[in-house]
């Protein structure tokens, strides 16, 4: 008989009221009331023999809840799950580990929890001990272990399972780099033996390496189902887009002009791009670009300087330079500074231009504005920070009045 798993409109609802013991008596189908959390919403899914399914999604998307239901650890609020085959689940490593027992004794305990007889454990114990590679520590109480050693022991315990249907929830990387490589290799081996494998992981590479099918869960729904390459790519792109939105909000908090010391102020902070004589916030890469700063300082402000910094959306500082104002002073109080970038070499992204007037280490006035760089013919293979190497120079000019 072919192994398979069939989920029919499976839902899981976590009641906001908490549980009261009603569950002991009621067989009624649970429906969502106000404030209840719908962890999994009417998921229908068929998994055939030979499929190795990866599940991706953000925290709280319902991945683990779905996995727990398939593993038989919890039952769906409504819908049905039909499983043909013996399910082995690896949810958390080392759940049964007793600190007061030695590593060796713990291996027996773990076998006992799995319902194995003593002689069955005897058959695999040498293999497990060899895999854990704990040396003499295997006969020391587990409480004397480091966290990494504990993880190694726990992982080794599952290293010999021979599953029909294997369910793994985020248990893929443990221990130091060396052991982690060994563990990953072993997971692959176990997965290759499993007739059906279901994995939840945030490691996209692991999903691509192990699985031949992938679903993406969002708010309890399956939003995409397809090849691991396609689904992980779509998922990553969406995570990036959402992350950028979040960053943008944080980024915008700084926007504005502030005077911190009397007598210091900005007259103009502007960016000009290409042929345009207009102030721009949307810049085309490759065009000649000028950053213009005009400001007022108190008469006696000797040693004042202007700091210009360009920061990309992800907090990467692209450009940061402190200019002494002496060279740019027009009159006693007025300074003008222009930075030319010909051509504009910044890669396509959103940037923030921070300009501050500083007297010694004291910031006297600051201005922040946002601009975006776009590229007409974006390069393939990712988003570069700079389009090509170029030198950036600040020049002194007396002809600023004409431009403005």
């Amino acid at each position, binding site marked *: 008989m072919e192994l398979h798993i069939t989920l029919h409109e499976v839902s899981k609802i976590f009641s906001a009221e908490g549980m009261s013991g009603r569950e002991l008596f009621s067989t009624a189908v649970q429906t969502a009331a106000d404030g209840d959390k719908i962890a999994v919403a009417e998921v229908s899914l068929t998994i055939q023999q030979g499929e190795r399914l990866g599940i991706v999604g953000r925290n709280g998307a319902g991945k683990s809840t779905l996995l727990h239901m398939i593993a038989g650890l919890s039952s769906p609020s409504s819908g049905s799950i039909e499983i043909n085959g013996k399910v082995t689940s690896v949810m958390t490593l080392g759940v049964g580990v007793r600190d007061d027992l030695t590593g060796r004794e713990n291996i027996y305990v773990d076998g006992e*929890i799995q319902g194995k007889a003593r002689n069955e454990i005897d058959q695999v114990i040498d293999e497990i001990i060899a895999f854990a590679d704990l040396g003499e520590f295997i006969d020391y109480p587990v409480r004397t272990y480091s966290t990494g050693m504990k993880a190694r022991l726990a992982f080794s315990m599952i290293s010999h399972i021979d599953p029909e249907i294997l369910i793994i929830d985020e248990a893929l990387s443990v221990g130091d780099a060396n052991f982690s490589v060994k563990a990953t290799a072993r997971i692959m081996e176990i997965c290759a033996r499993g007739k059906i494998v279901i994995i939840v992981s945030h490691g996209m590479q692991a999903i691509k390496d192990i699985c031949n099918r992938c679903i993406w869960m969002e708010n309890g729904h399956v939003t995409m189902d397809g090849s691991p390459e396609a689904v992980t790519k779509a998922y990553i792109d969406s995570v990036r887009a959402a992350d950028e939105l979040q960053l943008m909000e944080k980024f915008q908090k700084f926007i504005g002009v502030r005077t911190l010391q009397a007598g210091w102020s900005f007259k103009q902070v502007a960016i000009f791009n290409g042929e345009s004589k207009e102030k721009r916030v949307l810049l085309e890469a490759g065009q000649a670009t000028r950053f213009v700063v005009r400001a007022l300082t108190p008469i006696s402000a000797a040693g004042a300087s202007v700091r210009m910094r360009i920061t990309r959306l992800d907090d990467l500082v692209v450009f940061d330079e402190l200019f002494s104002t002496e060279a740019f002073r027009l009159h006693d109080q007025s300074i003008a500074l222009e930075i030319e970038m010909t051509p504009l070499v910044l890669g396509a992204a959103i940037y923030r231009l921070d300009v501050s007037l500083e007297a010694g280490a004291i910031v006297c006035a600051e201005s922040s504005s946002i601009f975006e760089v776009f590229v007409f013919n974006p390069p393939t293979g990712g988003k570069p920070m700079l389009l090509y190497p170029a030198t950036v120079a600040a020049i002194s000019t007396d002809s600023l009045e004409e431009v403005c």
Partner: protein
Amino acid sequence: MFGFNKQDIRLAFNLFKMNVRDRYLGSSLGSFWAIANPFFMLALYTFVFGFVFKVRIPGAETTLGYVIWLIIGYGPWMATVEAIMASTTSVVGAAGVVKNMAFKTELLPISASFVGIISLGVSLFFLLVLMTFAGNVPDWHIVWLPLIIMLQFFLILSIGLWLSAINVFVRDLSIALPNMLTIIMFLTPIFYPMESMPAAVQKLSFANPFFLIADAYRASLERHQSPSSIGLICLFFLSLMLFISGLAAFRRAKGFFDSAL
């Protein structure tokens, strides 16, 4: 039977072993305490009631008679209390395993019930020594003992199925339970003969399964009689009812354990 197979029995046995070991884990005398604890308790009762209070039951010449009578009732009760407590807390206590491994969790309260068998064994051994010493050795009616023990543990594990599942959702249960059990003990003619109860209440005691157990032990060991067969049959059917309903309730509720633990 009841959805259990051979492998489950082995797992239950493994869980039982672990339960016994875990209770005394980290103590230097280890599982020795499983035997020492009930032994000290019984020795204390023997001393207090045999030599300090010198209680006598009517018709008896020595105080040892009361001690033996008491321990026949109290020894099994002690095992019952221990077993019910262990089985009530079994699911919550094994939360890590319950949340992470798919297995028949109903085996947890069932296997935990059997920890009582150790203290029962100690009590019976202690009794045998005491009875030999008093010159009142049990006769052939002792053959009833295995059946009584089986019925006792059938009742305990059926209660355990209910209580362990309820305890997952209402944790107060395991806190209130020791006092509740003490109250039940004093409502049951274990420390005093049934005759000293008001007549109206005496009749009620026949509906008390714990009295039926104590009385069955006393009949077969001390009174040299066959225990009341009606009592045993009632006990069996009561346990069976509790077992079937408890198992069904447990299985309904176990799907919610992982969100309640």
